[in-house]
């Protein structure tokens, strides 16, 4: 087996709940996937579908009243969900680097940006602060911050949103993590810098041969950057496949509805998800049967009573839809 085929992260039945057993919501519901080294997997879905909760669960950063109630997250064969907190501290920032949505609030206003990069390095490497500072300067140069040697002494409020996201990316990749998780890294940024930041992330991921979980609601970004895609709806993965199949032969009615809004997609063009008609279900009060049934144009009676599981329809394509299963049974 070549290195490229050894999965770097295996997620099985990840389930995360907010609130109490009686009055709560399962916001990540039995999510399973595999991240392959050197590949980018996109996670798309409308707001509130559980994308961030999935990413935070992988890092075990879910805070009360939320908690992970089931599943396994295997990294090099070790389950992150049962690992002691100390071990998890090594994983965070060391083996998995995370980039968050809002660079304006993600940096600590009371610390210099140099400090906010070196503290990541020093948490994982046994080197002197001076050496960490040299590395921080190199990292800043690498992510495109000019005059880095001087700017490491500046505080975040001297940086624009795009520059802050570069700083945060520098910190996230400072220990050469095998996995990068980027949760809508450009949503809060000016459109003119969005493409630059995404290109930077893409280039870094390629250089480091890392795998990336890229959360986005921009189908143009998916087309440009991802190798594989997961579509999330109300806490569940409803379709999972490679990027070509997703755009050319989507099977789930929800995916189809999303794509219908953006006919004729081209690389590198920003195509934000369009809201489709109807309302996302209340996670505290889910409909019986398929969660998408109330909004589904193809809904059948069976959809309102039976909850569809995610099933493989081909070697690299899984769909959670009762109608699709029937279709494949016939074919």
């Amino acid at each position, binding site marked *: 087996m070549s290195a490229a085929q050894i999965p770097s992260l295996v997620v099985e039945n990840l389930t995360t709940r907010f609130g109490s057993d009686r009055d709560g919501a399962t916001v990540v519901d039995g999510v399973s996937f595999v991240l392959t080294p050197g590949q980018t997997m996109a996670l798309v879905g409308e707001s509130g579908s559980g994308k961030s909760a999935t990413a935070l669960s992988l*890092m075990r950063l879910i805070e009360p009243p939320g908690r992970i109630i089931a599943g396994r997250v295997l990294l090099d064969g070790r389950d992150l969900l049962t690992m002691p907190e100390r071990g998890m*501290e090594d994983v965070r*920032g060391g083996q998995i680097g995370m980039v968050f949505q809002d660079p304006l*609030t*993600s*940096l*600590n*206003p009371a610390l210099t940006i140099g400090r906010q990069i070196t503290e990541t390095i020093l*948490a994982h490497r046994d080197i002197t602060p001076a050496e960490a500072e040299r590395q921080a300067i190199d990292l800043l140069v690498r992510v495109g911050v000019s005059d880095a040697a001087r700017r490491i002494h500046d*505080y975040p409020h001297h940086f624009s949103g795009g520059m802050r996201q570069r700083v945060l990316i520098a910190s996230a990749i400072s220990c050469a993590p095998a996995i990068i998780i980027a949760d809508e890294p450009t949503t809060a940024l000016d459109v003119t810098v969005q493409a630059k930041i995404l290109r930077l992330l893409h280039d870094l991921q390629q250089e480091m041969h890392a795998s990336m979980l890229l959360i986005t609601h921009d189908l143009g970004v998916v087309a440009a950057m991802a190798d594989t895609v997961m579509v999330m709806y109300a806490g569940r993965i409803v379709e999972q496949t490679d990027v070509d199949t997703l755009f050319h032969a989507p099977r789930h009615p929800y995916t189809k509805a999303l794509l219908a809004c953006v006919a004729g997609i081209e690389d590198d063009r920003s195509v934000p998800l369009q809201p489709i008609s109807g309302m996302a279900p209340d996670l505290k009060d889910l409909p019986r049967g398929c969660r998408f049934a109330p909004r589904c144009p193809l809904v059948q009676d069976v959809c309102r009573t039976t909850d569809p599981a995610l099933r493989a329809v081909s070697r690299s394509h899984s769909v959670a839809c009762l109608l699709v299963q029937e279709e494949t049974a016939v074919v």
Partner: protein
Amino acid sequence: MGAFLAKRFLGVLPVIFGVSIVIFLLVQLAPGDTATVLLGPQATEAAKEELRRALGLDRPLAVQYFQWLGRVLTGDFGTSIATQIPVLDLVLPRFVNTLILTAASLLLAIVLGYGIGFFTALRANSLFDRIATSCMLMAGSAPPFWLGLVLVLVFAIDLGWFPVSGMEDFAGDGGTMDLLHHLVLPAVTTALGPAAIIARIVRSGILDVLGRAHVRVARSKGLQRRDLLRRHVILNALPPIVTITGLQLGYLLGGALLTEVVFAWPGLGSLLYDSITARDLPVLQAATLLIALAFVLANIAVDAINAMLDPRLREI
């Protein structure tokens, strides 16, 4: 930092000037008439008039004020009308005693307030949090006078752990231990109210910062809990906490003055009480001015600490 402090000092000069006017005028409001108090109720109107002229009390208030200010600026606070002792000799030792009580109370309020606030925030809504928070609420809303008397009853009279009043034991060695022994009850009495307020502010401040996005980012870096709390939570929570602590310093000073009367602590509080009764204006004025100055200096110290903590303030 030097320029910052210089600017702050220049900025408070008008404040101090205003304060001196207010003090001068307020002191005039003390009940009674100086000449009557000094000469007794039997004194003739002519004798009183004579005394007023001698003390300069017959001139217009504005003239009296500027004469007083001129003398104060040269360090001359005059002589106590009631005791004929130079005001500074009377006031300064008392002021030091008040500062000792205030400093001890501040230390206690900080240790209690910061400690309880911090740990209740980290365990927010736990049983420990609820118990500690209600205890602080009760302790904080008890009037200091009453609190002082209860503490004396329990710890001085019933248990005999601490002396009932005063600042030193005449039989004792008069050393630091003796002083600390006498200090405990008045300091606790003065500190509890401010400690409760500080604890509440610390708790909500830490909770607020814990919910901020940069804390989650810091956790995603794999920092150890200790570093995370120190650099990404406490450092950010401190500015409002330091400000509130500085404000409490005012209350502590005021509270100490009251506590002094309960515990017969020989500080400015008891002196103020006596000089109001005796309408000893020079003493009253000097004492209140010293208190106001202490207050202003404390505020500058608070601003300086905050400027060190927050890079954005430092650049203004």
